[in-house]
Each structure stands twice: as structure tokens, then as C-alpha cells.
């Protein structure tokens, strides 16, 4: 692949590490922020918030891409619960990881990156990527 200035088709995309670890999966992207409390079932990973672009999807095992967290701080506990129940996303990629998502990703040991060198829109739903939070890169497969 060519490496252009926007990095849109680069095989490796640089990003900032929020947590540690590596996760691989299909991209599931939300164009809008996520409030995990009340939006995601902690024991299944099902996205249940009425009217949200991800309503009806399941985030378990996916590389969940969204701009940032919002809403109740209980959202951190939902991410921890998802991880304990084996239903966590394989990894999280944000524009900016705020404290609710950062806290949940650390407690749930979910690989998490932010500030990628491309626009989040460039990551397409369904494409398989590897998120390496140790190295701070996203690898397109």
C-alpha cells in the first residue's frame, strides 16, 4: 500500500496508547459519542440504545471506533462488566479518549488507542484491523 499524507490507505496507522495489549477484529464504527450506561447490555454486548446508529449491533469482539465517551460515569463499570463477561470489544479506537472510557478500558484491560493519524471515518465498518496498544499502531489487514 502507498503511504499518502492522510494515511488513508497506509497499512500502519500511528495512534496514542491509552491502555496496553493487542486486539484484532472487524471495525464497528459509530459516528457519534457513546454513553455505555443504558446503551449496552453488559452480559451480551448488545447495543440497545433507541435511535443510536449502533442500535441492534453487538460490540463483543469488534474493534469499536467512536469519537469519544459521554454521559454517566457508570459507563466505566459497564466496560469492566463486558470484559468480565467475555463480551468486551476486541479493542477501542477514539478521536479522544475521555476519563469514562479510559477508566473502563483500564479496569477491563481492553486495548485502547486515541488520536489516530487518520480520520475515524477512514476506518470502514467490517474491515479487519489489529489494534496494537503496546506499540500505538492500528494495522490494516
Amino acid at each position, binding site marked *: 500500500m502507498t503511504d499518502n499524507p492522510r494515511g488513508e490507505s497506509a497499512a500502519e496507522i500511528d495512534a496514542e496508547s*491509552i491502555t496496553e495489549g493487542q486486539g484484532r477484529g472487524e471495525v464497528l464504527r459509530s459516528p457519534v459519542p457513546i454513553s455505555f450506561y443504558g446503551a449496552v447490555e453488559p452480559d451480551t454486548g448488545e447495543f440497545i440504545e433507541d435511535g443510536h446508529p449502533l442500535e441492534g449491533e453487538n460490540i463483543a469482539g469488534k474493534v469499536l471506533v467512536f469519537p469519544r465517551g459521554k454521559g454517566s460515569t457508570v459507563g466505566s463499570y459497564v466496560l469492566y462488566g463486558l470484559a468480565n463477561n467475555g463480551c468486551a470489544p476486541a479493542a477501542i479506537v477514539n478521536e479522544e479518549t475521555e476519563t469514562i472510557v479510559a477508566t473502563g478500558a483500564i479496569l477491563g484491560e481492553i486495548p485502547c488507542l486515541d488520536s489516530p493519524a487518520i480520520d475515524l471515518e477512514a476506518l470502514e465498518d467490517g474491515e479487519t484491523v489489529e489494534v496494537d496498544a503496546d506499540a500505538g499502531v492500528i494495522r490494516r489487514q
Partner: protein
Amino acid sequence: MHLTQHEEDLLESDNDAVRKAMELLVKLGDIYGAEEMIEIESAQASGISYKSIGDPGVEFLEGFAEEGAKASVPTFANPAGMDFERWEELGIDEAFADKQKRIRDALKEMGIVLSFTCTPYLAGNLPRRGQHVAWAESSAVSFVNSVVGAKTNREGGPSALAAAITGRTPKYGLHLEENRQPTYRIDVEADIESQADFAALGSWTGRLVEDGKPYFTGIDSGGTDDLKSLGAAMAATGAVALHFVEGVTTEEEPPENVETVTFGEGELTEEYAELTTADDPELVVIGCPHCSPEEIQDVAATVEGKDLTSDLWVCTSASVKTWADRNGLTETIENAGGKVLADTCNVVSPIEELGYESSATDSAKAATYLPGFCNQDVAFNDKETLLAEVTE
């Protein structure tokens, strides 16, 4: 961030909870630009009511306890969703009570003091001036920063717990002296007399200054209860964690080069109206933040020998309630038809499930939260006026 050898060791701990707690603090420190950690003398954990944290919170606290989480400094718990002794009598659902008891048991497992109060400084956890602590309850944060002179940021539930486990917190924000200076000046021209007047001044100011640090002039006196109400209100309508009252909490001269506004009689009257949406409350609640012994004495003196025409909750810590019991204040209040409750309050208990639709309070913090958290219409006024309206 610079970490000591001990802190590096915590990051590599075999204890999962310790390792995650340290990782969380390091990451939060990175986000907020801390250069190092600072050791804390005490912690105070929020997110204790089942109503607030739900099943995800129960599972987190139980899971964290199982992973080996233990408080390493004195750590007090915020109010729960019910009085642990009297929940059945109050009509709390058994399923709710079971979940709340699981939360209590997880906290006990972690070595957290089962204080269940938002006023730990009245119940056995009083830092001293200059100490660093990691507290989460917003009104208590305001009190210890502003009145006591200890230093804490407004922690969240997990970050306060992580601080409790590791005994440290990232050094940023209000832990740094340069961030503890006034950013607004409020010249108070209204007569601030009752505790509710302090509360109304607080809710007006919080809305104006948001997360600023107001300096008040023109307040001649203020007791512990008054300052508790003022700080609680500013932390509810804004995110104020530190304030100054000339001649009461600080000897420093009023700031010159900050935005200055005046709070007059008109603002005071308007603020009472702003906080009031009901005229016939079904439940009167005193004790947000939790009552001191003096406040319970005041309530008892007002209702002694009378009959209440609406329900009355007087909310406090189990420690202060013990004193109220011994001095006969609880009996006086309950003979009039009220209840003195420990461990909880009207905001974090499920009062909307108990059939209440309208509440009266002398707390601007409660008046701010009750409509959203508990679907209540609210009447805001001082204790004496509220109690006079419902006694015969």
C-alpha cells in the same frame, strides 16, 4: 510521569486490583498533565447507592474486591440507597435491598469504612489543613478544600477507589498551590441569614462560575452547617471544588483582577423562586448534606409536641444518629410523625418508587437534583418555614 520505585512495583503487582488501580492513576495523571504522584492521608468513595450505579456497579465492586482490592488509607463510603436498618419500613423493594447489601459487603471486603455519609468530616474522617486526600463526594470535596484547608480534586468513583488502594493520587489540579487561587469575586449585598440563604447563594454562584473558584465578600459569619450548604449547592449547579469567604474561611485580601459580580436581595429572592416548583410537598427532607447534631436539635425543637401533616425525613450518618438517639431527639421527631434515617438521603434512595411526587428541602443541592434523579416537584425554603407549613 516520574514514578518512585514503590509506584513502579505497584504497576507490576501480582494483585490484579492493585496493578489496575495504579495503571488507572498513571493514565489519569497523563491525561491531566501530572508530573508525579502524591501520597494521600484518606480517601472517600462515591457511587455507593444501587440506584446510582446499578448492576454494572455491583459487579464491578464485587469483581474488584475478588481481585484483591484493599484500602490502604482510611476510606469512607458515600450514602447508600437505603437505611440498612429500616429499609423494609420505608417500603424499599427487596430486590433493591439485596443489591444494596451486596455493595455493602463488597465495600466491607475492601476494608472501606461503612460510614455511608456525605459528611465524613462530621463522622470520623476530618483531614487537617494542608493534607492531601482523594475524595469523591462533591459537597465534601468543597468542604475539605475550602473550610478545612485540605487538598483534593473532585474524584470519580473509580479514581477515588484506586487512590484508596494505592494510597496516592496524581499531583495535578487542586493538589498544586498555584491552582488554589480565586477566579471570581462575589460581592454579597443581600443579608445572608439562614442556612437556606447560604444554599441559595451557592446555587446561584455555581451556575455563574461553573468550575471556577469564587471569593465571597460581605458575609459576616458562617457556621459549619452554613458552609456545608453553600459548598454543596455550588458543587451541584456548578463544579466548584474550592471557594473562599472573606474573614470566615480565609484571611487573604479579596482578589482585584478577577471578574466581580454582585449578589443582592433581588438575586436572593429570585433564586428561591428558581429552585421552587411545588407548593404542596408530600415529603419534607432535611439533611442534604447529612445533618450535624445541631441541625437535628433544631428540627426536634421545631416539631416537639406537634403533629406533622406531611412525611418528614431527617437524613444523617449512623454516627450522628447515635447521638440523636441518645439525646432523645430521634424520639421527639418520630413522635411528631417524622423519621430520622441513617446511611441514605432523598436523592440517592428511590423515593420516586415510594410514591412521592413532590418534596420540600432546605438544600439547594437536593432542589437541583430531585427533579432529574427522582422525578420530584420541589419546594425550597429554610427549615423553620418548611416545618411550620407542615406542623399543627
